[in-house]
């Protein structure tokens, strides 16, 4: 789907090639280690042993690819390395989100809610 989107992007803005940082996969492999080292320093990360360090590097590489995909799918924002770049998406969701699922929210979509706000004037 990312490729399809890229085609759509090109079709829409023929003058603007979508430049996604990080080049191709080879570049990414080559640069990942140096990116990871600066990430560890910048965010003061520390891992309990060499295995954990190696595992977090592999997660980091996956997240570099994800950031590139997000950049392609979301070109009006800037995506890249953040303090969460050594977390799998599942770890990130489990640790840093926390909005409880709510059937009521679903009902809201259907327009039912006990606390419905009154409609406010929006012209003038």
């Amino acid at each position, binding site marked *: 789907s990312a490729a399809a989107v890229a085609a759509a992007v090109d079709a829409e803005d023929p003058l603007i090639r979508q430049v996604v940082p990080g080049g191709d996969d080879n570049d990414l492999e080559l640069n990942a280690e140096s990116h990871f080292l600066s990430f560890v320093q910048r965010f003061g990360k520390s891992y309990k042993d060499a295995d954990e360090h190696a595992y977090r590097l592999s997660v980091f590489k996956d*997240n570099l690819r994800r950031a590139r995909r997000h950049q392609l799918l979301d070109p009006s924002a800037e995506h890249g390395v953040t303090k969460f770049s050594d977390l799998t998406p599942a770890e990130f969701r489990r640790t840093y989100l926390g909005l409880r699922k709510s059937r009521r929210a679903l009902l809201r979509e259907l327009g039912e809610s006990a606390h419905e706000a009154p409609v406010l004037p929006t012209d003038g």
Partner: protein
Amino acid sequence: LPDDFDWRDHGAVGPVKNQGSCGSCWSFSASGALEGAHYLATGKLEVLSEQQFVDCDHECDSSEPDSCDSGCNGGLMTTAFSYLQKAGGLESEKDYPYTGSDGKCKFDKSKIVASVQNFSVVSVDEAQISANLIKHGPLAIGINAAYMQTYIGGVSCPYICGRHLDHGVLLVGYGASGFAPIRLKDKPYWIIKNSWGENWGENGYYKICRGSNVRNKCGVDSMVSTVSAVHASKE
């Protein structure tokens, strides 16, 4: 409605906080909305406690008795407002500081700083959301955080984004157009305060596109609630 509006320019938004590794985003969203409402009611910006929600709010959804607020394991802003109406109000951050883990409730009614008059849920309509934002102050909202793990800055407007909500944040303003460097297009956007510290996003803030042709991007319009605070005189 003004083209641009930002409650940070009017002193109604407290400092960016950091929820740490605890799923308590809902308590930051709820406390941020009450901070703004309290400011509108009293003219004073008080930094309010999230830990009181984490430790003491186990309020359940009226329509889903098995769905209750549970500290670092998640919660809902509207249920948090219900809890506050029953508990009487919220203490300050200073009196009930954040620890980022579930603890024993240490709520002290005599230290209440802000109380909820009432709260309401806004329809999935961007004009109504803007009008409620201006009338009631910052709004507690839900959002799909799929693109936020890698977000660095700019106006996020993904071509593809789910609308199931998994994160609670605070809507503090909106802009008519944020220059989108790559696509050389201006996109109107919402200004959202997050709770992942100032070294995430744009100094702790997130911008996501709005407007009729991108309505409800990542579910941002679909869980919006306002809260109004008790006025100083009544206190």
